[in-house]
């Protein structure tokens, strides 16, 4: 009787221990050769529009099963990637990374598979050249296949511009802001005219405008050699002064980014223009709808951007060296970034293709739910035209930290009425305190 009880207890302890082992994730991966069944994991974030493509790939490749995870925001995806990278385990076979954290990825680029070993050289002509350059590390290894890019155009509210006695027609608006030679000076001048006529703010908050301004420069927070240089970057300071003047003239609606009062700011006339990279169009539509509005709120999309071409965001698909099936993973990544796939992703999520062939595809240039919302604007065509002339800027490992922790507070200060020089000096002070490199 007694010994029986003992065996039971030992069994219970052993059972608990094995459960604990399972819980800590010592899962055995199903190995096997390329002909056997293979499970590939994919991690994406936000709305990348790839979900519909997995089933199609599985149908074409019966031995492949895809397990996909989508993380809600890019920020959370970054944390997820960093922790798994630090742990040295747990990354997906196909891992999406965002342009904003590419600087950090490049720091550890040797933990990503060189896709040239799996046929990248045969397909590298499909992308716009700067996108390919971004996904190539310092040693010339191609570690990322481009998915979407974020060429920026100008979203504007035609109804509000009309109230201020300005044109609301797409081409006339582009002309109003200076057409092909649009400058930030033009933008702020139109803003001041608008403000004089209506007394209302012109753009939602200074942060996004600053973002666009910085991304456009040849050198942003880092020099091309990879050193942080903000104090010595005269271009940055002159743009800052423009922005500060705009905020002091009441052009900023002082909104909180990504909050916008649950979208109400887009429907109550708080501001009339908005910085719109391709993927932002879906965000605008979502915000307006969250606040109960629809296409009649007057939002439109113009083929013009102050200061010339600019890019904000975009993603890459990479294959970490942790992957047990790098060859199959690379194949899947190539499939997901083919012209057809990117057209499908654009239709699903409005992410503008980085593949040249896809950019002019009817599926991109044609009408969609999104183009209907933006007063039937030819969104795909406009974005294609906005993508011309974009160059890639060097992004250092701490680029996103500087943007968020140094200039996040500083642009907020501009909005709350602090003068430009004080806010700039505060930013430099924060930079000093953060002690980045």
């Amino acid at each position, binding site marked *: 009787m007694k010994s029986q009880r003992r065996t039971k207890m030992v069994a219970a302890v052993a059972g608990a221990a094995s459960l604990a082992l399972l819980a800590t994730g010592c899962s055995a991966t199903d190995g096997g050769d390329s002909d056997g069944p293979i499970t590939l994991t994919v991690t994406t974030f936000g709305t990348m529009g790839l979900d519909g493509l997995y089933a199609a790939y599985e149908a074409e490749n019966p031995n492949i099963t895809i397990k996909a995870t989508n993380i809600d925001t890019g920020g959370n995806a970054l944390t997820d990637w*960093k922790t798994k990278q630090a742990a040295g385990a747990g990354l997906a076979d196909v891992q999406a990374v965002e342009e904003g954290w590419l600087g950090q990825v490049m720091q550890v680029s040797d933990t990503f598979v060189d896709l040239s070993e799996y046929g990248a050289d045969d397909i590298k002509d499909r992308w716009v050249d700067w996108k390919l350059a971004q996904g190539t590390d310092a040693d010339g290894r191609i570690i990322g296949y481009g998915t979407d890019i974020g060429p920026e155009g100008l979203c504007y509210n035609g109804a509000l511009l009309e109230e201020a006695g300005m044109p609301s027609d797409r081409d006339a608006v582009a002309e109003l802001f200076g057409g092909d030679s649009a400058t930030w000076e033009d933008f702020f001048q139109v803003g001041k005219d608008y403000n004089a006529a209506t007394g209302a703010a012109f753009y939602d908050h200074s942060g996004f405008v600053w973002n666009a301004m910085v991304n456009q420069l040849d050198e942003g927070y880092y020099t091309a050699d990879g050193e942080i240089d903000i104090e010595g970057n005269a271009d940055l300071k002159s743009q800052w002064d423009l922005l500060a003047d705009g905020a002091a003239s009441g052009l900023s609606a002082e909104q909180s980014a990504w*909050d916008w009062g*649950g979208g109400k700011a887009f429907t109550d006339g708080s501001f009339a223009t908005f910085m719109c990279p391709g993927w932002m169009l879906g965000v605008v539509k979502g915000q307006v709808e969250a606040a109960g509005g629809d296409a009649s709120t007057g939002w439109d999309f113009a083929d013009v951007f102050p200061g010339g071409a600019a890019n904000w965001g975009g993603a890459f698909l990479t294959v970490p060296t942790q992957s047990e099936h790098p060859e199959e993973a690379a194949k899947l990544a190539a499939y997901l970034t083919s012209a057809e796939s990117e057209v499908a992703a654009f239709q699903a999520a409005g992410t503008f293709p980085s593949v040249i062939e896809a950019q002019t595809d009817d599926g991109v240039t044609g009408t969609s739910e999104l183009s209907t919302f933006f007063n039937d604007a030819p969104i795909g065509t406009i974005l294609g035209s906005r993508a011309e002339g974009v160059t890639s800027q060097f992004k250092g490992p701490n680029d996103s*930290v500087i943007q968020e922790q140094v200039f996040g507070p500083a642009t907020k200060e501009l909005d709350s009425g602090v003068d430009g020089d004080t806010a700039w000096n505060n930013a430099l002070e924060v930079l000093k*305190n953060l002690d980045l490199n």
Partner: protein
Amino acid sequence: MTTMTSPPRPDEGEAKKRSERNATQLTRRQRLSRLDVKASPYLYIAPFFVLFALIGLFPLVYTFVVSLNDWDILSGAGEWIGFDNYVAELNDPYFWNSLFNTMSIFLLSAIPQLVAAVFIAALLDQNLRAKTFWRMSILIPYIVTPVAVAIIFSSAFGEKYGLINNILTSFNIEPVMWKSEVFASHFAIATMVNWRWTGYNALILLAAMQAVPRDIYESASLDGAGAVRRFFSMTLPSIRPTMIFVIITATIGGLQIFTEPKLFNPTSANLGGAHREYQTTVLYLWDMAFNRGDFGKASAIAWLLFIIIVGIGLLNFMISRKIASTEVKVISKRRAKKLARYRATTAANPTGVPAASVVDEEKSS
């Protein structure tokens, strides 16, 4: 005991030999049961200690090792730099800022929370109709996940479109910048904490109050002590040990506050407010580890916070012991006085029957 030996025989020498043999040549069964007696207790408590070593002690020690290195989250262990990370953190204005925020939010939440919890518990301790209903009701906020609480409150505390500022403006009061002013943001976060924890603490205090014998209250009220007097002179002193427990757990929880400030303004570019208005120490730690990627410094912050919490915990403990010992002192002084008086009266009245006046005095005191 499972080891049974036969009773000693009259023959002394024989018995001795026998017992010696017993000690050296036990049967298998006997040896097993001896092992059972000696080793089993350790085996029974082992799971806790094994788990603690695995998920408590090891991370603690490992964090300390990491804190002595220049450790980047992506590139891993760097140089051994001794206590440089600690020095850097103690000189970092953002570290002190985070400590100030943590303490401020802690005080703004702990004090009103405990005061409210005591009074709610006192109310629930009365003879109410539908007792269980009231008691369950105050626990409801505790059941709601903190994330949901944070999302709802952060929406209500919105600066431009929030419910509270809408109400304020409708009364022609200036809207409060809940998310960009230091005190206002601390107040808002403390509100979330209070909403969640007051009911929980009230229930614990209620349990302590119910353990106070009712007949003491009865005799006190017979002697004319009012409700307020009974509360301050009887209820509060009786629940003191529970109070100390509640205060210590509130301190530990309060110093580790994370969810509420993290989600208070999830869209903010900077964790804990644009200018770190409500960046608590744990939030700062998180930022250091996962945004700025400096694991070494983050580990140093974790250890500094650990030391601070242990320090405050010890302080709490000492204060509570002091209160307890002064109480004992007061009581023993009072008792000694009475004893002396009693002896004086019995000495004056050698029959051994205490004077009636002393008995009266005892009753009324």
